[in-house]
C-alpha cells in the first residue's frame, strides 16, 4: 500500500527570506506514529503548517492519502486532523459548538453520536455545554484534539501536544495517542521532549535548520546510536591503567577511582568477560559495577551538533 503521507523535496522560504524548510523528504505509512524531534525553530511547525494548508510551500510536493495538497486540496485536507501548538479556541463558545463547527467545515454530515463518543473518550462529555474559557489548560488541549477528530481524519498532526502540560496530563495524552493508533489513525507529532518520542513513537525523525537529518525506527536508532558504558568503582585508586589492560575503550577517571569501559551492545563480543578476568588477574579489587545506556536525548544532541558542525 502507498504511504499515507508522501513529502518530496518540500521547501518553504518566507517572504523575509528565511528558509524554514530546505527540501524535506518524508514518507509515512498508514497507522504508524512518527515523532518529529527538533529544537525550537527547527521547522517542525512549518512542516506541519505547509502540509495542512496554513502556509503555501515554495517548492516540492506533498501527497496526503494520495492527493496533492495544492491541486487536490479538498481531498488532501479532508484526510487531515490538526491539533495546533497554540491553544487557539474561541473562549465564549461551548465545547459542543466548537467541535460541531470543525466537523461541518470538513463537509461532514452532523453526527451527534460520533461527537458524543469522541468527547466521552477525551473525558469532555460532562463539559460539552461549558464555555471554553471555563476549562483548564489540559481540558482545552483535549478540546483541540476533539475538534481534530470530529471529522474522522486518517492522519492526525499533533503539534507539541504536551508543551507546558504537567506530567500526569502528559501521560494521559500518551494514552490517548496509543488509543488512536489502535483505531488505525496515523499520527505525526512534534515534540522537543525526547522522552515523549521514546515513549510513544514507532519512528523518529530528527529535524534541524529546516532539514530532516534522519528518520529511523525508534529501536533501531537507539540500538545503532546507543552505546553502553560499564563503570567500575575501584577500592584502591590507580595511577594509570595497567599495561595488560590497555585498550581504546577503557578510560581511567582523573582521581583514579573509576574505570569506564565503553562497548556496543550489538556486537558479538562486548569484551566484558575478558576485561573482568584481566582485572582479577592484575589483582585489582572492585567495589561496585554499574552500566548505563545513552538515552535518545544524548543521541539527539549529538546529531544536532553534528549537523551544526
Amino acid at each position, binding site marked *: 500500500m502507498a504511504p499515507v503521507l508522501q513529502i518530496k523535496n518540500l521547501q518553504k522560504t*518566507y*517572504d523575509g527570506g528565511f528558509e524554514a524548510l530546505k527540501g524535506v523528504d518524508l514518507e509515512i505509512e498508514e497507522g504508524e506514529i512518527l515523532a518529529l524531534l527538533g529544537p525550537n525553530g527547527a521547522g517542525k511547525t512549518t512542516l506541519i503548517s505547509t502540509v*495542512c*494548508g*496554513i*502556509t*503555501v510551500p515554495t517548492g516540492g510536493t506533498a501527497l496526503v492519502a494520495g492527493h496533492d495538497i495544492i491541486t487536490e*486540496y*479538498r*481531498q*488532501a*485536507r*479532508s484526510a*487531515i486532523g*490538526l491539533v*495546533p501548538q*497554540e491553544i*487557539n*479556541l*474561541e*473562549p*465564549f*463558545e461551548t465545547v459542543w*459548538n466548537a467541535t*460541531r*463547527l*470543525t*466537523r*461541518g*467545515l*470538513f*463537509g*461532514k*454530515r452532523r453526527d451527534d453520536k460520533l461527537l458524543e463518543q469522541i468527547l466521552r473518550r477525551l473525558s469532555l462529555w460532562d463539559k460539552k455545554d461549558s464555555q471554553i474559557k471555563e476549562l483548564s489548560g489540559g481540558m482545552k488541549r483535549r478540546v483541540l484534539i476533539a*475538534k481534530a477528530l470530529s471529522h474522522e481524519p486518517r492522519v492526525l498532526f499533533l503539534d507539541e501536544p504536551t508543551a507546558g502540560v504537567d506530567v500526569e496530563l502528559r501521560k494521559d495524552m500518551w494514552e490517548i495517542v496509543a488509543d488512536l493508533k489502535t483505531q488505525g489513525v496515523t499520527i505525526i507529532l512534534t515534540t522537543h521532549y525526547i522522552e515523549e518520542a521514546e515513549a510513544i513513537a514507532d519512528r523518529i525523525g530528527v529535524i534541524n535548520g529546516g532539514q530532516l537529518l534522519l528518520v529511523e525506527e525508534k529501536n533501531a536508532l537507539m540500538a545503532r546510536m546507543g552505546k553502553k558504558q560499564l563503570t567500575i568503582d575501584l577500592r584502591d585508586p590507580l595511577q594509570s591503567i595497567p599495561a595488560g589492560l590497555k585498550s581504546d575503550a577503557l578510560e581511567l577517571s582523573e582521581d583514579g577511582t573509576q574505570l569506564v569501559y565503553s562497548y556496543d551492545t550489538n556486537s558479538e563480543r562486548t569484551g566484558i568477560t575478558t576485561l573482568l578476568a584481566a582485572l582479577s588477574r592484575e589483582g585489582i579489587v572492585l567495589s561496585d559495577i554499574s552500566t548505563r545506556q545513552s538515552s535518545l536525548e544524548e543521541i539527539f544532541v549529538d546529531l544536532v551538533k553534528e549537523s551544526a558542525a
Partner: protein
Amino acid sequence: MNLTAVWAIYRYEMTRFFRTLLQSFISPVISTSLYFVVFGTAIGSRIEEVEGVTYAAFIVPGLIMLSVMMQSISNASFGIYFPKFIGTIYEMLSAPVNFLEIVLGYVGAAATKALFIGLVILGTASLFVDLTIAHPFAMVAFLVLTCLSFALMGFIIGIWAKNFEQLQLVPLLIVTPLVFLGGSFYSISMLPPVWQTITLFNPVVYLISGFRWAFFDMADVSVGVSLMAIAGFTAICLGAIWWIFRTGWRIRS
C-alpha cells in the same frame, strides 16, 4: 461546493448573535428612539415636511440605512478579524473549503444580523410615525443588497486590520461621515448647489436615495442610478475579496 461548511460557518456565527440577542435587540431600539426624539421631534418641529412627507417619516429610511451599514461592517469585520486575532483562523485555512465558501458563511451571517436589526428599527419607527411603503419589494431588495455589500466591505476591513484600532478606523473615519453626509437626515435638494454636486460623489447618497424611493416614491437621484451604484459597489468589494484570497494577502503566508 462545500455547502455543509458554508452552513457550519453561518450557523456558528449566528449562535454568537443569538447569545447576545437581547443586546442586539435593545441597542437599535434605544438608538432609534433617541434619533426620533432628537431629529424627529426637535428638528422636525421646525421642518415639518420634506416634499410632502413629514420630517419624522422622511428620516426613517436614512436611519435604517445608517444602522444597517454600520452593523454590516462591524459584524463582518469583527467576524473575520476575531478568528485572526485569537488564532482560530487556522481552522479555516486547514479545512477543505475555498474562499468563496468562507466569504459566504461570514458575510451571509453578518448580513443576516444587519438585516434583522434593520427590521427591528423599521418596527420601532412604525411606533412613532405612520409609514406606508410604496414599493415593498424594492425596499427589501435595497435593504438586502445594502446589507450584503457593506458586509463584504466589512469583511475586507477585517482581513486588512492588524489591530482593533484599525478595525474601528475605517468605519469611524470614512463610513460614518459618508453616511451622515449622504442625506440620511435631509434631502440633497436642501443643500446649496455646490454641495449638491459634491454630494453626488458620495456613494452612500445613491443607496439612501434608492431606499427612500422604495418608501415614499421620491428620490434625489433616479432609482436606476441607485441600483447601478449599489451593484457597482458590490462588484468592487467582490473583486477585492477575490484578489485577497487569490494572493492570500494577510491570511496565508
